[in-house]
Structures are given as C-alpha cells and as structure tokens.
C-alpha cells in the first residue's frame, strides 16, 4: 500500500511549486506578535484562506458535475512560524522542547554554519528586517506568503493588493498586538515583492519564463517523494528525481524526508514535537533571500570565456555557453552536460526540440523534458563531462558518492543511498530585474525556500558541506562556483578527459556571485496544527 497523503491537511507549496502552477508573482510579509491573544486572532482570521495541497482541476480537464472540488485561488496564502513566533503564540514549552535545535537557533545564529557571514557580516549584509536584534518588537515571528496569478500586463492580480490590505487591517485592529515588520530592501519596506522573469509574448502581453537572473532555466530537478503526485503519474515522475536504487531503477523518496510524522529514508518516524498532530504533515524550510551580482557574473563569464577559448582552442561563441554550462552542470536551457557534453551535442538537442515544437510532437517533447533529469554520473567518473565542482553535481549528487561506483560492477552499485537523506525541495521566485545598465547594487536575486524535514541534516548539510566546501568532490576547499563564498583565491576546476591528453582549465579568482540578504528557519504547520496554534489548544500531554 503506497502512502496516501492527506492533501487537505498539508499547506500548499510543499508538494508542488506555485511558480509552476501559474502563480508567477509573490509577496511575502513578516509579522511580529507582541500579544499572544492578538496573534492567535489574526492567524485564526487568515486560516480560512490558507491554500492547501488539494489539487484543483485544470481548465482542460474539469471535474465531472457534482464533484466537490477546490477552486484554484487567485492568490495562494500560506503561513509559517519561526521558533520565537511559536513562543510568542504561546505554544506550550513541552511542545517547543521537541523542536530541533537548529530551528530554535534560527538562521542568524547559524550564520557561520551556513557560511552567511561572507562577504559581509549578516548585521550589515542582510536586509534590516532580517538582522538579528535584541528588541523583541522587531523579531520575525510569522511569515505569510502570498503567491499570485498575473494579469496580461505582467502585474499581479488585484486580489493580491486586497489580501495585503486585509492582513494590514487585521494587524491594525490589534492596536500593536501584531505588526507588519518593515525593513525589506526594495520598493516597499513592508514586504518582499517577487516575480518570475517576464518576456514579451507575440500578442504584446507579458509571459513568465522559468529563468533566474544569471540566465539559466531554473527549478528543473526537484525531489519526488511518496504520495507527492497521483499514483498514475509516479512511475514517470520518479525517473531522475526520486532515489536511485542499487538495481539502477528509480523510486520515490520516503515522504518523511519532507513531511514530519511520516517514515523517512532511515525507515523510522523521527522524533518530533508533541503532540504528533502538531508535527504531522508539517515541515520546516529555510527562507533564503539571495542577492545575485549579475554584472559581476556577466563580466567574469565574458573575460574568462575568452581565456577558456584561448587555452582550449575552441571558438569563442562556443566557449562562453560551455563555460557557463561547466559551472552550472547544465546548459542555459537546462540540458544536462552529462548527456550533452559538447557544444555540438547541445545544438543537436536544441534542434530536436525545435523540430518537435514545430511539428507539435508531444511525445518527443515529453521525452526531451524527461531527459533533463533522467541521468546519473556513472558514465562520468572523472568529471570530464560535468565537473565535480559544478553546481548541479554538488547540490544533487545522485549516484556519484557511491563508493563502489568506480568498480564498474553493477552488482556492487548502491545507487543514490548517500544522497537520499540530503535532498531539499526548492520553492521560491526571483525578485527585482537585472535591467541593462544596472549595477550589482540594484535589488535582484531570488528568494529560495529550502523545504525539508530536518534543516540540520538536509539543508544545512548541503549548504555547508556541498556548497561551501569541496571535500566530497575531491575539490579541497573549493566552494560552489555559483552560490559558494569566493575568497581571493577562489577557483573552479574544469577537468579534461585524461584520454584526450589535454590539460584541465582552471577558472581562477572567482568573484562573489551570490550574497545572502536575509532569511530564517520556519515551521510550516499542517492545517490541523495551524488550527491548534491559532485557537491556543496545542496539548502536549
């Protein structure tokens, strides 16, 4: 019997990313709760509009008449709490003591663990609203995420403004009991506005594109776990995104890696905050506001690509996209280097896609989409195709850490076993726009929410050991060439195939491309737990 998740109990945005469901706009608000009763009142008033994981019918496949179904909201609303937020809501201490210590610490206290005090100390680098403070009235307690649909002109639907006003009015009515915290960098200090990158459609309207500011197609690979997608879709979805078994087939990850109260990859239900209803179907996430130095990125790529072309003797127009692909692990349109290692290979894939689009060949398009994630590192043992240090290989190591992979003996393979407990769901949207003539002082970046059952074991491990260190990739102290901290001597090694007799290329003196601008660790409760918190009836006994 496969697990049947109770979708109406799970908040939306965990099972699937809103960006992909037609919500390209976002607005995130932070609340401080000075008076617990007022905090509960505000949350209780918002509770009826919180979006759950219940699937809504698509326009193409409406449900039969008479079916009770969830209407697709114009704006998806979700609520999460910091540890101090739960304390401010008067969740009992006996419940709170069951929460994990990294969550109790909060992200600011973990800044050195996740390497956020570089290039600036978080007290200077972070947006004022996120900076650690001793003033209880300035602490972040509640995060409300609003993910909105978009009008054809590229602006969010009007409902976003309405809900913002409703939340603001609810807070005002408490007369200081609950306040919206100010101090986000950007146009409005009272909230964080987000938007997918937009392009002009042929009819003059705006359409969202799944790109981030450095120009890569984002959010391609994401873990797939038990119960996440309807059973009939699972067999397809797990390929390349679930876990790789020893026999080289794919299976969904255990639900407990992403939802509390379910068995996880160690085949146990981890200890949680009690009562179990408080934890079950909830999860944690790290909110990361990551600034992108787009100008530094473009300048560095242009300069280094010239050097790369000169050293390797390849044409300049191939060197730049290849350099970017080596850094990311994928070509800018998402095609993995493992399956298309050369510029010519990539062009071949692109022409296949173009031909399939022209012929409206859905089967080929689906196969090409699947190929974006359906690969392992078995056939690239020295990183000659996809460098060990590339962002892709660091963030999802698939089978590359299998100690018996090098034996070449399929009977000894272990699949992705050393990767299965280090997966995170990535949710979020870009913010700002990298306009021509802009500078790196402009507001542009991405808000990423790394969703997982254990921030310590999953998010922090990946961030500290795989993004900010290189030992698991035989890369010494080298950090991720995109999101890692880059000291004066930061470098990125592009291995060459030893059989080719060519030397490797070392991209030296990497500038800082990504900077942390704030965030915190949040608990996203189930609808049951949200009710218990909002009505003050959490009972750990």
């Amino acid at each position: 019997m496969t697990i049947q998740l109770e979708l109406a109990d799970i908040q939306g945005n965990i099972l699937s990313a809103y960006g992909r469901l037609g919500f390209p706009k976002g607005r995130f608000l932070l609340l401080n709760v000075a008076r617990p009763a007022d905090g509960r009142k505000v949350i209780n008033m918002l509770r009826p509009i919180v979006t759950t994981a219940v699937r809504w019918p698509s326009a193409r496949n409406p449900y039969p008449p008479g079916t009770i179904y969830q209407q697709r909201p114009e704006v998806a609303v979700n609520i999460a709490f910091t540890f101090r937020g739960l304390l401010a809501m008067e969740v009992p201490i006996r419940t709170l003591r069951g929460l994990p210590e990294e969550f109790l610490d909060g992200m600011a206290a973990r800044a050195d663990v996740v390497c956020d005090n570089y290039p600036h100390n978080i007290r200077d680098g972070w947006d004022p609203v996120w900076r650690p403070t001793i003033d209880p009235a300035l602490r972040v307690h509640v995060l409300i995420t609003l993910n909105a649909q978009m009008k054809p002109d590229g602006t969010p639907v009007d409902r976003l403004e309405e809900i913002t006003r409703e939340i603001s009015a609810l807070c005002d009515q408490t007369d200081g009991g609950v306040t919206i915290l100010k101090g986000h960098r950007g146009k409005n200090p009272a909230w964080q506005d987000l938007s997918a990158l937009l392009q002009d459609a042929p009819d003059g309207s705006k359409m969202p594109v799944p790109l981030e500011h450095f120009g890569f197609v984002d959010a391609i690979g994401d873990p797939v776990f038990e119960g996440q997608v309807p059973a009939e879709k699972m067999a397809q979805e797990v390929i390349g995104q679930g876990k790789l078994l020893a026999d080289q087939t794919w299976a969904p990850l255990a639900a407990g890696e992403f939802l509390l109260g379910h068995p996880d990859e160690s085949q146990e239900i981890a200890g949680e905050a009690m009562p179990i209803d408080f934890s079950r179907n909830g999860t944690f996430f790290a909110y990361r506001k990551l600034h992108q130095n787009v100008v530094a990125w473009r300048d560095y790529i242009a300069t280094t690509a010239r050097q790369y072309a000169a050293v390797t003797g390849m044409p300049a127009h191939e060197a730049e996209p290849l350099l970017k692909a080596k850094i990311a692990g994928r070509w800018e349109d998402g095609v993995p280097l493992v399956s298309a290692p050369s510029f010519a290979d990539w062009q071949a894939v692109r022409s296949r896609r173009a031909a399939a689009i022209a012929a409206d060949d859905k089967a080929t398009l689906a196969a090409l989409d699947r190929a974006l994630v359906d690969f392992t590192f078995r056939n690239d043992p020295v990183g000659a195709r996809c460098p060990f240090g590339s962002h892709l290989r660091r963030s999802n190591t698939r089978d590359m850490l299998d100690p018996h992979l090098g034996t070449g003996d399929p009977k000894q393979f272990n699949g992705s076993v050393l990767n299965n407990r280090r997966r995170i769901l990535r949710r979020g949207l870009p913010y700002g726009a990298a306009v021509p003539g802009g500078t790196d002082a402009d507001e542009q970046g991405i808000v990423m929410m790394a969703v997982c059952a254990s921030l310590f074991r999953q998010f922090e491990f990946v961030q500290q050991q795989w993004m900010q260190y290189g030992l698991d990739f035989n890369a010494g102290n080298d950090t991720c060439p995109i999101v890692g901290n880059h000291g004066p001597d930061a470098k990125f090694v592009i291995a060459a195939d030893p059989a080719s007799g060519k030397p490797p290329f070392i991209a030296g003196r990497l500038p800082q491309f990504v900077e942390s601008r704030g965030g915190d660790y949040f608990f996203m409760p189930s609808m049951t737990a949200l009710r218990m918190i909002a009505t003050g009836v959490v009972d750990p006994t």
Partner: protein
Amino acid sequence: MPNFDGGHYFLTALIPVRTDYVADGSSTAMITSHVHALRQALIALPTALQSPATEEIGVNSPFARCRRTHFARLTVMDDVAYNGRLQRDPIVATITKRDPHSADPVDVLPHPYLIVVADFDATDGEPATLATWLRDLWSVMEPEWREILSHCHGEVHDAGSFARLIARCQVETTMPFNDYWPGAPPLKGLPLARLAAPVAISAVVFLAGLLGTLFVRHPGGWKLLLALGFIGLIVTIWLAYREIMAKGALPFPAAPRADLPGVLKSLYLQQQFTRFAIDHQGQDDAALHAAFGEFLRTHRPEDTASPTQPPGVVRV
C-alpha cells in the same frame, strides 16, 4: 612500539592534577581548585591559526614555536565515565542465586588528569628522543608549561625535570595515525616460503609418524618420528608467529619529506603551484618553460627552510 611510527613520535601522557586549593588569580575574595585554574590557563593559550580570520589576529599557538611539532593537544579528564551496569543473564543470575538488586561497583579516578598528546618528528622511539623534544619544547614555551604544570603533581623547575615528569606520566600510544604517503610505501612482504617451509617439513614428519604409528605393526621408530614431528610443528609455528609479530611491530617507514619543514613546504608549494597553473594555462612551451624556471627560482622547491608556510597556520 606504537609510540613511534612513520617517522613521528606519538606522545600520550596523563599528568595527575592537584586536588588541593589554589589562590584565584582573578579574585581576592575567593580561592579555587587547581583543575578550575588549569582549565583557565588552557583556555587562555592561543590555538593555531586555522582560518583567514584567525590568521589576521596573528597570535599563534605556542607549540608553533617548536619546529618539530606537528600537532599538540591539551585537555582535562575529570573522571572516567560510568557505562552502566554490566549485562546480566537472568538465567545465570537465577541459578547462581545472585541478588538482582546488588549494585555493580562504580569506579572513579582519584584525581583529574591533564592529558597531553602530541606528535613530532623523530628518528626513533627511544626515551632519549622523547627527552630531546621535551627539552626543545621547554626552551620555547617554558612560561606556559610552568603555569600549566603548577596545577599538577610533580616538581618542575627546569628542562630536565619537565622531561622526566612527562616521561613518568607517559602511557603507550596504541593507535598512532599519520598519512603522508602519497602512494604505497616500499614495504617488503613476508618471506612466506621461508616461514612456511620448516612448518611444512615438521607437518610431513608428524603425518608420516602418525600414519606409521597407526598402521605399522611394530611402530617403535614411527612413534619417535611422531613425537619429533609434533615438537617440530610447535617450535616452527611459534618461530614463524614470532617473526610475523616482530615484523608487524616494526615502525612504518617515514614518508619522504614528512617532517614538519617538509609538510609546510609542500603546503606552500601546493598553493603557489595552483596559482602558477591558473596564471600560465594556455601559454606556449617556451613561455611556460621560462615561467616555470622563474617559479623554481622564486619558490625553491628543494629548500624546506624558505620560502615556506609559517608553522601553526592552517591554510590549503
């Protein structure tokens, strides 16, 4: 002798800490315990410079003054941890009528210990070799050791008494570890044929004697052969065992350039060569040749004295 391995001496010493009281240097109103004051003294010792940030501080570990020391650690052991009651088989306990309520003894140490562990360059594991290092160490960090050992038992007033105290408190290091061999060291295998041949001959004699004793009608001489074979087997197996164990007890050979100056120079060269490789990639042979000549002249790979990485700095 595991105290010495791979060209390094591995010292472990447990020095008993005094259990009487001592004046508290930070207070005129209170006195304190030696173990408390010792911890205070240890925490005030600077550690090695382990990151770019600490490198900027520039106050290095006093052990970095000794150019033979790879690693040193001082810590305090208050007591041994009690692991709980021993496992008891209820059936055995019932048969032996052992009272299940009877408590197991809980053993404790008579006083805390200062644990000193260090590994340093050495030619052998002789006591005199340890003594020379200890005397070196005393010569570069006498004030620190005087402060630390003032809280321990034992009179220390000069290099000689310091070396004697540590030697008296030494316990055998049973699991030394170092890893400076880039490949497999040139170790000779055991002379299996030579070890096995006497055993095999004894076994043949023994078997022949056994067969003769069993199947010959008047096995007088065969019995003698059997006895000889039996004794021979025991003696040859014991000799082979002794030789194998003696070979196993031999220290691992020192890796090339595994002494501290060699290791520091290697780390220095690794950093410089990485920069060199980045800066000169893609150059033609002549330019590369000239640049590498300059690299050799500047960084002098064979000269471990300089230029090199300063000791006590963790930088790779």
